[in-house]
């Protein structure tokens, strides 16, 4: 059974210093993002424009997808359509079977995480090597990524040293990032050279040209795709943009929002297979059309997976990506996940103070915190709320709806707090664990007002 966010977060917070380190590491990324954004005077206009382009995309998704398919096919790319994660995984396996391949390389793709492709292929006898360094680290550790852009942000370099010593034979006690990276590179080089099929994700797919763009910093997507006989690109259907010219907006926003870089080191355009190569693209729905039909949550499909909302989220920074038990963590994950499974993810929209910082950093202006609020309403109304909470809320509503009951219970509460504080100041009261209760005054404002102004 999945551990809910609050429980996982409590566990995460048991190590005070590590929580400090995690928070500060991500806050540093948020500050880098701020510096990059503030260097562009028209930043807010760029965000507006990106949001509007995506608005157009979502309103015309059907036509853009068909246009993309037509143009991609014209370029010699084989286009596949997958209704859900299972179909996506089956399509990939069928291509691999046809090739007679049991070992592949894969660069970063949150979609394949969402579809649980790695475990599916493993069950079917296919070995996948993740070639993004961060993803390789979590793969060796047998963990899912904890962040969509920085998959192993929860790992310290000393711990990576231990992991690499075990798996890649680096010297014991070596925690030098350059040496560790070099070791990973050596190890991956052999995989790149020998694997005949490479999977990549897709950051943007251009309808007018039938090409797709993959953004990485390490060049691992390129290395995989260029050395393989078969390149399979997997994309969610919302990744479409109408025209090439729109990349001028999105590429300026993506890396600045994600890591504070002006642009990713590689923004590679894949337009057609080279001679003798096969190129496939798998277009995946997996709940996206359902979300498109939910008016209040539709805008969540504008997401370009930059991770800025995670880096700025004070809750994410202090609970870690794994506490969200979903491929995409943080604020954006919390509004995407309930669409996939309301029962399993009913806790996520509550893992937020609704502070609104996420919506402010979002490069495509998704109203994330408002959607968190809306999901809370939807989940509660559809019976995904604990009975005890419902009863408590009904009791609270009853007290607050009746002025005289409210005044009486307020008075009783203050009296109790003043005279029998152990009733509230005990371990059963979560407030009291790390905070004092307020000191109750003798009279309420209402009582004072009646005496002095009444």
């Amino acid at each position: 059974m999945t551990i809910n966010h609050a429980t996982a977060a409590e566990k995460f917070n048991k190590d005070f210093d590590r929580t400090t380190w995690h928070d500060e590491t991500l806050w540093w990324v948020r500050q880098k993002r701020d510096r990059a954004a503030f260097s562009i005077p028209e930043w807010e206009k760029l965000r507006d424009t990106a949001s509007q382009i995506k608005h157009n995309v979502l309103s015309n998704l059907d036509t853009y997808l068909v246009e993309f398919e037509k143009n991609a096919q014209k370029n010699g790319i084989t286009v596949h359509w997958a209704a859900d994660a299972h179909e996506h995984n089956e399509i990939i396996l069928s291509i691999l079977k046809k090739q007679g391949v049991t070992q592949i390389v894969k660069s970063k793709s949150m979609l394949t995480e969402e579809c649980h492709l790695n475990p599916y292929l493993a069950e079917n006898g296919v070995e996948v090597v993740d070639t993004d360094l961060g993803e390789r680290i979590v793969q060796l550790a047998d963990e899912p990524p904890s962040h969509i852009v920085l998959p192993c942000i929860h790992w310290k370099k000393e711990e990576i040293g231990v992991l690499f010593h075990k798996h890649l034979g680096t010297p014991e006690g070596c925690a030098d990032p350059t040496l560790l990276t070099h070791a990973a590179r050596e190890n991956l080089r052999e995989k790149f050279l020998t694997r005949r099929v490479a999977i990549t994700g897709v950051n943007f797919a251009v309808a007018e040209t039938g090409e797709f763009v993959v953004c990485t910093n390490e060049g691992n997507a390129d290395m995989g795709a260029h050395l393989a006989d078969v390149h399979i690109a997997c994309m969610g259907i919302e990744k479409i943009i109408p025209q090439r010219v729109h990349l001028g907006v999105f590429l300026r926003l993506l890396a600045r929002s994600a890591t504070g870089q002006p642009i990713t080191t590689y923004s590679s355009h894949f337009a057609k297979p080279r001679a003798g190569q096969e190129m496939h693209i798998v277009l995946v729905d997996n709940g996206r059309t359902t979300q498109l039909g939910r008016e209040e949550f539709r805008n969540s499909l504008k997401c370009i997976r930059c991770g800025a909302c995670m880096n700025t989220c004070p809750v994410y920074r202090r609970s870690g990506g794994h506490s969200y038990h979903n491929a995409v963590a943080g604020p954006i994950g919390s509004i995407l996940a309930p669409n996939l499974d309301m029962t399993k993810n009913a806790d996520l929209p509550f893992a937020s103070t609704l502070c609104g910082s996420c919506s402010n950093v979002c490069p495509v202006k998704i109203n994330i915190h408002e959607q968190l609020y809306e999901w809370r309403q939807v989940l509660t109304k559809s019976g995904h709320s604990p009975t005890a909470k419902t009863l408590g809320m009904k009791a609270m509503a009853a007290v607050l709806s009746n002025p005289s009951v409210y005044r009486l219970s307020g008075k009783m509460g203050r009296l109790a707090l003043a005279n029998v504080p152990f009733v509230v100041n005990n371990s059963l009261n979560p407030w009291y664990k790390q905070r004092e209760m307020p000191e109750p005054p003798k009279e309420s404002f209402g009582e004072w007002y009646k005496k002095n102004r009444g």
Partner: protein
Amino acid sequence: MKVGLFIPCYVDQFYPKVGIATLQLLEKFGCQVSYPSKQTCCGQPMANSGYEHLTHDCNRLFINNFAEYDYIVSPSGSCVLHIKEHLHAPESETQNEGKATHIRKRIYELTEFLTDILKVENLEARFPFRVGLHQSCHGQRGLHLSQMSELVATPFSKPEQLLNMVKDVELVKLSRKDECCGFGGTFCVAEEAVSSRMGIDRIDDHVKNGTQVLTGGDMSCLMHLEGVIRRRKLPIKVMHIAEILTATE
């Protein structure tokens, strides 16, 4: 001008002095202030927990209490934001939607009412302390009481504008000027670990930068932060901004 004073439930019960300071401040600037005695709560604790559908009775009560005023003013950005965004007449009483609309448009958080409506330029207050301002998210990001650090836009701050009118106040510069304190309504108990940790980190920032008095526009955040301060026995006093704006120390 007739002003209806909206004192949120937890301020009414736990921080009457904040209500008194708010009342005095409004009266000082010539407002004709009344406190409708049958008020309770804006309904936000239910709504933010996913039970907006249980807030109809609170809404009805709120409309009955406040529809007749030119302005409704409250010393809480969070409760004001909730009313602004969610106050509607119950479905069976659509004839009252006009009153709800009037309230949504005419409700103000205290500091914005002072700067934008009363256009206060002089306070005749004195408070010789190092003051750390906590920017509560709903006031800041929801009501735009001050510019948000995430946006590439011109800085401003209505609460700071007022604090700067108080003689001898020294405003403390924080390392993270608008990070959430972690209160978050029922979040503070449902996600106790993260909530407390966020509170501890906020307070640390104030300690490191020499805050003597912690202030802000939302007593809910301050109640949570005060809980952390008192548990840790730190020498920081907590006061609502209304108390500082009326101080004559």
